[in-house]
């Protein structure tokens, strides 16, 4: 019996077969590559943390250097209290701060804030993750504070899909380096960082924004100040 290729039965049969084949291929590929992808993401996170304290690492030595520099990590609440006995996915390294920021079911006051304690050249540095909104999507980064709890030792920012050449420049060294040495506290209270238009960034607590990338620059400002205020609660108790 010849198959009628224009018939409904053939059309349905073909579609079902195609979907099953494609589904099996794609899901087995995804599951098969899962460990590799997870490892890549974890190494990237370690590289970002190291980058904030000014240690350049590659995917190869990221793991090793992380063990060398980062000594302790813990999680604090919005009140600045250290949280103990958390499940694994809520411990400092595994806590997904991006997901937590995005999740509308988690109230802002219920968010958890990880702290990574590292030692570089004999000095203690606190690495603090920050998450915020850019123009097109999420932006995030790590801020390293010196052990006076108010001087920024270094930062590393990243983004998902900011405009190349404009907002995407927040991850470039020239932008990040401006934050080094800025003080986020003045006379004992939180002062904040202001991202300003080109030229006046040399003043204290001000950094130059990116020309043509104003919304992303302002996003960085909002993200840094909102998160640093929370961390300041913890540091002021120390």
């Amino acid at each position, binding site marked *: 019996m010849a198959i009628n290729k224009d018939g409904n039965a053939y059309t349905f049969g073909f579609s079902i077969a*195609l979907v099953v084949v494609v589904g099996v291929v794609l899901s087995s590929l995804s599951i098969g590559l899962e460990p590799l992808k997870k490892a*890549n993401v974890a190494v*990237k996170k370690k590289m970002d943390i190291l980058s904030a304290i000014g240690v350049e690492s590659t995917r190869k030595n990221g793991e090793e250097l992380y063990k060398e520099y980062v000594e302790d990590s813990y999680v604090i609440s919005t009140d600045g209290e250290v949280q103990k006995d958390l499940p694994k996915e809520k411990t400092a390294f595994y806590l997904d701060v991006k997901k937590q920021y995005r999740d509308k079911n988690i109230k802002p006051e219920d968010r958890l804030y990880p702290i990574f304690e590292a030692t570089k050249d004999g000095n203690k540095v606190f690495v603090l993750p920050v998450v915020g909104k850019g123009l097109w999507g999420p932006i995030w980064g790590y801020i390293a504070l010196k052990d006076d709890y108010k001087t920024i030792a270094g930062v590393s920012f990243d983004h998902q899909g900011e405009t190349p050449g404009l907002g995407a420049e927040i991850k470039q060294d020239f932008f990040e380096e401006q934050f080094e040495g800025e003080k986020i506290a003045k006379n004992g209270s939180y002062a904040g960082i202001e991202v300003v238009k080109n030229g006046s960034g040399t003043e204290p607590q001000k950094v130059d924004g990116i020309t043509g990338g104003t919304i992303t620059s302002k996003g960085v400002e909002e993200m840094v100040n909102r998160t640093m205020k929370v961390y300041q609660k913890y540091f002021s108790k120390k």
Partner: protein
Amino acid sequence: MSETEENLKKPKEPLFSKKNKKLITDPLSDNNPITIQVLGICSALAITVQVEQAFWMSISVVFVMVFGNLIVSLLRNLIPSRVRIIVQLVIVASLVIIVNEMLKAFVPDVSEKLSVFVGLIITNCIIMGRFEAFAMSNKPFPSILDAIGNALGYAWILLAVAFVREVFGSGKIWGYEIFGSNLPGEESGLYEMGYMNNNLMILPPMALIVVGIIIWIQRTQNKDLVEEH
């Protein structure tokens, strides 16, 4: 020529006959998917700010296009005609997901650079266009050649536009400064003399203008391409 003669002649057609060569060379110039058929403009606009991104995008498109055309061509006698567009869409979407997964697992740095743009390959009308116009009615080998030709035709326009935009918009090629440093306070090279990057180059409209200039040059070179009105 009688039909039998033609049938006898067919298997003897050399692998790279004139006709097959044309499949590759045509889309590079006189039948370019971007400048002549005006397809795939959206991605020409989105990822031509930097040469590096345009390069990785081109590589991904070549992969998706070649395998897509091959698969569609192999299945061309099996695909029910009433659902052929959706079948082609499933094929291109699956290939894009495969590319994305591979990049994430094996070259995570490239995956980060392309970020969301890999997904946009699905919406590239050149790919669906070639599936429907060529692979559905041709044998696998010519389909592969057609895919290579069209993907490269797309790639070179992408790289040309990205080159112009990166040089004049950021003063760089593949991320390397060519006019000197333009960091505030430590200008060097051309910037020291007062040169400034053209920020318009970085904005999307400039991609269209650059593509327009390429179309203009192409049509002054080859008058056959100019439509009569």
